[in-house]
């Protein structure tokens, strides 16, 4: 079985750099527009009462930091899912995926960057994103003392938070590299020992992932709405990351195929990837609905406030996103990918996976913005610009990782099965 190597042309790389450049320009334009007080009168009116209620108008730094955080959490999650996907395939003794496994392997390349960005954004922008980082909340003598948040300080304190962050990325990168090394060595040396070792590494990783995926979700997303809590939340964020990661893998496989690579990948592999995207879109919806229904049903104020903020609250600012989220992440994929044929056609899957990737970005937007920017949140140059920058960087690291090894894992014990895969 011959290997295939991806060649990233200078033109493609330039496209990514251009993406980053455009993103930076939009970002700066957005910041200037905001800092110069664009719509100053609107702000003054709106924030008259708001200021009286103790809410300050969001500054451009706050908006920038929240956007950096949003995109980094989103892209880090997708990168992490790369390793998760590989681990699941090993533990399940799956044969069909051998031909596409290099894609999720490379997807995890972003993790180190994700780690550094997460650290820096927290250190510089922590106060803007996380309400609980303000010291006055824990000072019994301060009028702004909050007993509920103070009660969480055993977990929500800067030192422990940072230690956890380092541990998460440390473990995730360790396991990613470990699996990658086994995979690359297998290309060079053959045999089945790397395969069996990878199963053991994957099993260990899954345990680590099971715990850290939830705790990182609590740290990075749940704590933004500091008073709120939900036992489902860790699994909800995982569901969003998982389907986004699956969509990213599928989209990448399709784009590579359309550019002449992955010659042995056929409609059968695409079909299986399509099934994953379809099924886990439904799974995400199930998790979404379970969380929502239970809090809506019991209608306990300290729990339902989260959804009120995202529906009628915040002057209905987020209501359209609330429903758009469901349409783009459930209704659309469900209806379009239902038929067998649709899951075998690259065009259909391309459209749906792009929709899902955009859709789950909005999902994370809805998770983070109401608790930070509130009515000052928007979809403007800053949002688009930041996203483009992150996308460009992600694609650069991703393609670099893809080009580093053969696209075909030439000595994988299940390669023949994968080549002859027929659904």
């Amino acid at each position: 079985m011959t290997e295939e190597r991806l060649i990233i042309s200078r033109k493609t790389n330039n496209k990514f750099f251009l993406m980053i450049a455009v993103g930076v320009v939009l970002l700066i334009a957005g910041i200037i527009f905001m800092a110069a007080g664009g719509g100053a009168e609107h702000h003054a009116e709106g924030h008259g009462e708001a200021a009286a209620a103790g809410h300050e108008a969001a500054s451009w730094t706050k908006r920038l930091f929240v956007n950096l955080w949003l995109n980094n959490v989103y892209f880090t999650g997708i990168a992490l899912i790369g390793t998760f996907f590989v681990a699941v395939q090993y533990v399940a003794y799956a044969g069909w995926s051998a031909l596409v496994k290099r894609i999720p392997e490379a997807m995890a390349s972003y993790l180190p960057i994700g780690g550094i960005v997460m650290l820096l954004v927290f250190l510089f922008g922590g106060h803007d994103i996380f309400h609980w980082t303000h010291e006055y909340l824990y000072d019994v003598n301060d009028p702004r003392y909050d007993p509920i948040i103070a009660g969480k300080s055993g977990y929500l304190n800067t030192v422990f938070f940072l230690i956890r962050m380092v541990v998460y990325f440390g473990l995730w990168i360790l396991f990613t590299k470990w699996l990658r090394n086994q995979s690359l060595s297998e290309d060079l040396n053959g045999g089945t020992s790397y395969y069996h070792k990878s199963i053991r590494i994957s099993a260990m990783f899954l345990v680590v992932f099971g715990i850290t995926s939830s705790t990182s979700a609590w740290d990075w997303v749940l704590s933004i709405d500091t008073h709120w809590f939900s036992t489902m939340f860790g699994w909800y964020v995982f569901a969003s990351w998982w389907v986004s990661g699956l969509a990213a893998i599928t989209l990448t496989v399709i784009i590579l195929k359309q550019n002449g690579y992955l010659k042995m990948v056929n409609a059968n592999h695409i079909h299986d990837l399509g099934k994953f995207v379809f099924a886990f879109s439904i799974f995400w919806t199930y998790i979404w609905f379970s969380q929502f229904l239970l809090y809506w049903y019991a209608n306990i104020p300290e729990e339902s406030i989260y959804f009120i903020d995202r529906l009628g609250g915040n002057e209905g600012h987020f209501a359209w996103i609330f429903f758009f989220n469901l349409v783009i992440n459930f209704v659309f994929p469900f209806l379009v990918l239902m038929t067998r044929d649709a899951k075998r056609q690259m065009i259909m899957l391309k459209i749906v996976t792009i929709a899902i990737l955009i859709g789950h970005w909005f999902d994370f937007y809805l998770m983070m913005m109401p608790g930070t920017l509130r009515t000052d949140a928007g979809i403007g140059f800053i949002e688009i610009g930041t996203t483009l920058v992150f996308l460009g960087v992600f694609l650069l690291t991703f393609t670099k990782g893809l080009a580093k090894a053969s696209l075909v894992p030439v000595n994988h014990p299940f390669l023949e099965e994968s080549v002859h895969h027929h659904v």
Partner: protein
Amino acid sequence: MQHVSPIREPLVTGGKTYHDITEDVCRQVEAKPNARWAAALAVALVGLAIFIYSVYRTLWFGIGEWGLNKTVGWAWDITNFVWWVGIGHAGTLISAILLLFRQKWRTSINRAAEAMTIFAVICAAMFPVLHMGRPWLAYWVLPLPNTFGSLWVNFNSPLLWDVFAISTYFSVSLVFWYIGLVPDFATIRDRATGPIARRAYAVLSMGWTGSAKAWSRYETVSLILAGLATPLVLSVHTIVSMDFATSVIPGWHTTIFPPYFVAGAIFSGFAMVLTLMIITRKVFFLENYITLEHVESMNKVIILTGSIVGIAYTTEFFIAWYSGVEYEQYAFINRAFGPYWWAYWSMMTCNVITPQLFWIRKIRRSLTATFIISIFVNIGMWFERFVIIVTSLHRDYLPSSWAMFSPTIIDIGVYVGTIGLFFTLFLLFCKFFPVINMAEVKAILKSSSEVKHHGHAATMHATEKGLNTNRHHNE
């Protein structure tokens, strides 16, 4: 042409041929009942008798025969209901979800597992009906036009959602199981010698001939049913969990319940399948079909789902602290250190610790260890439901309402009785129906068995080998 990697372990050992599969599985159906089966049935019938008596006491004298009180309005009844429904989920998972994931090892266990589902759901359904107090009015749960206005059912209630969920689950599982049985009934019909057997299996097989067109439709139907049954099984235990989660009771009202209950159901269901299959394979000499590979695969599912359950316990505990809600915090402290601490620690030991033993390969591949652990898992899962229901109810918001619960002999009798009912049905199934899906195992024979078949010579040689290795296969 499909390719199967040589590093995969065979799923059918002993050099079996298609005909061997027919013989090995039909043997139990066609033979006269043996002494062991009869003895087991006798024990099960004793259990069934206990069930009938306990139900009579409940219906004639009322719910006062149970240990319930105003504070603890649900105890053994709903614990048992959830326990049985949970067990039932493994059958559908093995049939449907493992079919979608193309796991070939499901073929020798899915029929028995599906049968287990049907019987477990029957046992489960006993409890909501019995705990009504006036079960003869059970039809009131259906939205039928009536003379009270019409007074319609409360579609806002999870208890009503349960009615639709369990009914749908039971009927779809029954249909899925039955369709799978049709080709095998045809096999038995075509071998049957006795006049009653020939007629009975002819009717049951619905005229099945095995034509290619019929098989093509059959496969489509199986796949679609699997695709429908998968979200169905998830929805059923989700709705069951909502019986608790939609309330405001600390320990009950928590968003993680739906997927956590589903994971727990699969966990207990697989344990029950293992308990049953380890006995069945020995008694019916089916070790070449339900191999150590099958047992090991099921044990891996147990590690996975057991770990998910463990993570859920930890999450609940952590978020209870994190939330700062004192009632929630007390609920968890009470579970671990209050008057029902023994139930809580039984649950933790059985559910969190014992399945982790399966990380050790030797234990994973030991039939004795697997059998023992599978029973502990089911004990643990019973305690989990008991802990959730009783400890949350017996001490919630208002201390003046706090009370204790203890079961009466009738509570215990109904539960033990349903175990008797379950085994009666299962033993009858083993006698009259082929416990292994012959057609599906034949379908994987060429790709997944020990000896590759190339026509006559190998077949005859393999048949001899087959007869001998049956007895040798002891692990």
